[in-house]
């Protein structure tokens, strides 16, 4: 038997209690890993590495539309190969099922997103049918849509000119993704922007939520981004140009200050954990005051006894913490796969490092007070039961 063997034996003196405590540590660190990964994504600075497309939106907010008159200026920027645009429609299927639905220019979109594959005839039909829509394979399968069907969709933002929120569309195509990642992104429905522009009641003529720039040279992404934003600086329509990944992140950021939300959740989780594990450790030390006194009697120093208690707390937090972080990395990888790589939720090195620091701090926080109590123990009093 080694000292560590003694620590482990003591840890499992009340097996059920230890396992339950371990489970709470695992859950806490699972949450920590996932939320910290989310936080890392949202707090990361912009990266233009490998970007082949840029998104141009209004600097104020994605919800402030930009004029389509910007399109020729954007196309004229050296390094920009093609420009498309998208407008959020706010589509709702049947009673209350929201759809991810945008109005687009069919042919421009076709050029910019070769990752979406669909028979050429269906692209042409989409371009030539004013009430036409195309749906991603996943969404079409989910709702049982077939090409040629009339699809009634209402919009919770844009009523038609006659005041009706119900729009009727013709499904003229179903697109798939070129690979596994893009197949997972076929949850979108597209309608013709010309039709939207003409038929919506708000008269949002000639405006769109954002432009998509296809770059001729991905190494110039950052420079082009700066050029675009400089071009419209001090105009009524100032822009914010970013990569698709950053755009997706900022889309989610509209919910609120994600970093703050994450920090508060983690604070609540760890505060609860502190109470749970701290109570377990305190109870564990309280129960074996005479045994700790015997250890001192046998010649273990005050510091050794403190060390035993801290080591127990550390072992509990370390095992639970590492299992929790490992599970978080598995869950993160699943989320990443599930979103076709849109949310890269795998645990990066900094999250692991932060996790280990949290494990150490948690161990000290929960083990120090009971440990100091054990350290201060007077042998004769403890043996006499005082």
């Amino acid at each position, binding site marked *: *038997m080694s000292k560590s063997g003694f620590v482990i034996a003591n840890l499992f003196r009340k097996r059920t209690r230890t396992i339950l405590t371990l489970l709470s540590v695992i859950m806490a660190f699972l949450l920590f890993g996932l939320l910290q990964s989310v936080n890392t994504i949202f707090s990361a600075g912009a990266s233009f590495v490998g970007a082949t497309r840029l998104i141009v939106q209004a600097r104020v907010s994605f919800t402030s539309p930009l004029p389509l008159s910007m399109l020729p200026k954007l196309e004229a920027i050296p390094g920009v190969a093609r420009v498309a645009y998208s407008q959020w429609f706010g589509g709702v299927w049947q009673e209350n099922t929201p759809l991810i639905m945008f109005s687009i220019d069919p042919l421009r979109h076709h050029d910019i997103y070769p990752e979406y594959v669909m028979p050429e005839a269906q692209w042409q039909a989409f371009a030539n049918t004013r009430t036409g829509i195309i749906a991603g394979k996943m969404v079409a399968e989910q709702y049982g849509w077939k090409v040629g069907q009339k699809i009634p969709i209402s919009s919770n933002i844009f009523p038609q000119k006659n005041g009706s929120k119900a729009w009727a569309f013709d499904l003229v195509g179903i697109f798939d993704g070129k690979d596994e990642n893009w197949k997972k992104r076929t949850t979108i429905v597209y309608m013709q922007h010309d039709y939207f522009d003409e038929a919506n009641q708000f008269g949002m003529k000639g405006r769109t939520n954002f432009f998509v720039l296809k770059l001729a040279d991905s190494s110039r992404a950052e420079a082009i981004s700066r050029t675009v934003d400089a071009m419209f600086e001090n105009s009524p329509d100032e822009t914010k140009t970013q990569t698709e990944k950053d755009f997706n992140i900022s889309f989610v950021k509209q919910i609120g200050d994600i970093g703050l939300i994450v920090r508060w959740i983690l604070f609540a989780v760890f505060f609860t954990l502190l109470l749970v594990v701290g109570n377990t450790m305190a109870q564990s030390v309280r129960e074996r005051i005479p045994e700790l006194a015997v250890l001192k009697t*046998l010649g273990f120093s005050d510091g050794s006894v403190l060390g035993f208690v801290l080591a127990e707390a550390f072992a509990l937090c370390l095992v639970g913490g590492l299992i929790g972080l490992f599970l978080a990395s598995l869950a993160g990888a699943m989320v990443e796969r599930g979103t076709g790589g849109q949310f890269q939720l795998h645990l990066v090195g900094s999250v692991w490092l932060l996790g280990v620091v949290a494990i150490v701090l948690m161990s000290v926080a929960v083990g120090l007070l009971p440990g100091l109590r054990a350290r201060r123990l007077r042998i004769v009093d403890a043996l006499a039961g005082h």
Partner: protein
Amino acid sequence: MPESMVEVRKVTKVYQRGKQKIEVLHGLDLDIPKGDFVALMGPSGSGKTTLLNLIGGLDQPTSGEVRVGGSRIDQLSSGELARWRAHNVGFVFQFYNLMPVLTAERNVELPLLLTKLSSAQRRKNVAVALEVVGLADRAKHKPRELSGGQEQRVAIARALVSDPQLLVCDEPTGDLDRKTADEILGLLQVLNREHGKTIVIVTHDPKAAEFARRILHLEKGQLLEQARAA
């Protein structure tokens, strides 16, 4: 004159209980030669356990000197005293005080974790100690799987394993039936006579005290007389 193992000189021990000061030992003197087997007897509150604790280095006197095996242990710091106990004294308690999560052999091995012995050497010493107390066949059992007498034998093996010259035993048979108590006391007698251990036991039981070479009576913190056991 036989070499002294324990020398207690003018020892006073005062406990503070709330605002009240209680003087338990009053300028006590005591000599225990090496190889002696002494039983400390006396009524409750007479200071037997307090004296035993001072001799075993579990507590410090308020005044006076305590010398054990030539060392002034009343002058040692808490850390030095812990190291001294690890090498010089073995303890046996009334309620055995074994670690319930450890097997008999692990319990006996515990004091050896403070030494630099290799794992193999530790196992060997443990086996010898369990052999001496007649419990080699129960080495893998946890305390709850042992009888009271067997638990006390494990506790004695734990006290012996680091080969101290002094064993202090606080009511070692207080929780045992007569027959088992006699077996335990017989074992202590063997350790005293055949292995040369100096043994000090505290007991209320006159029959237990008869196993000792000498019986010392304490009353109100003072030694009354020294009697020769049967």
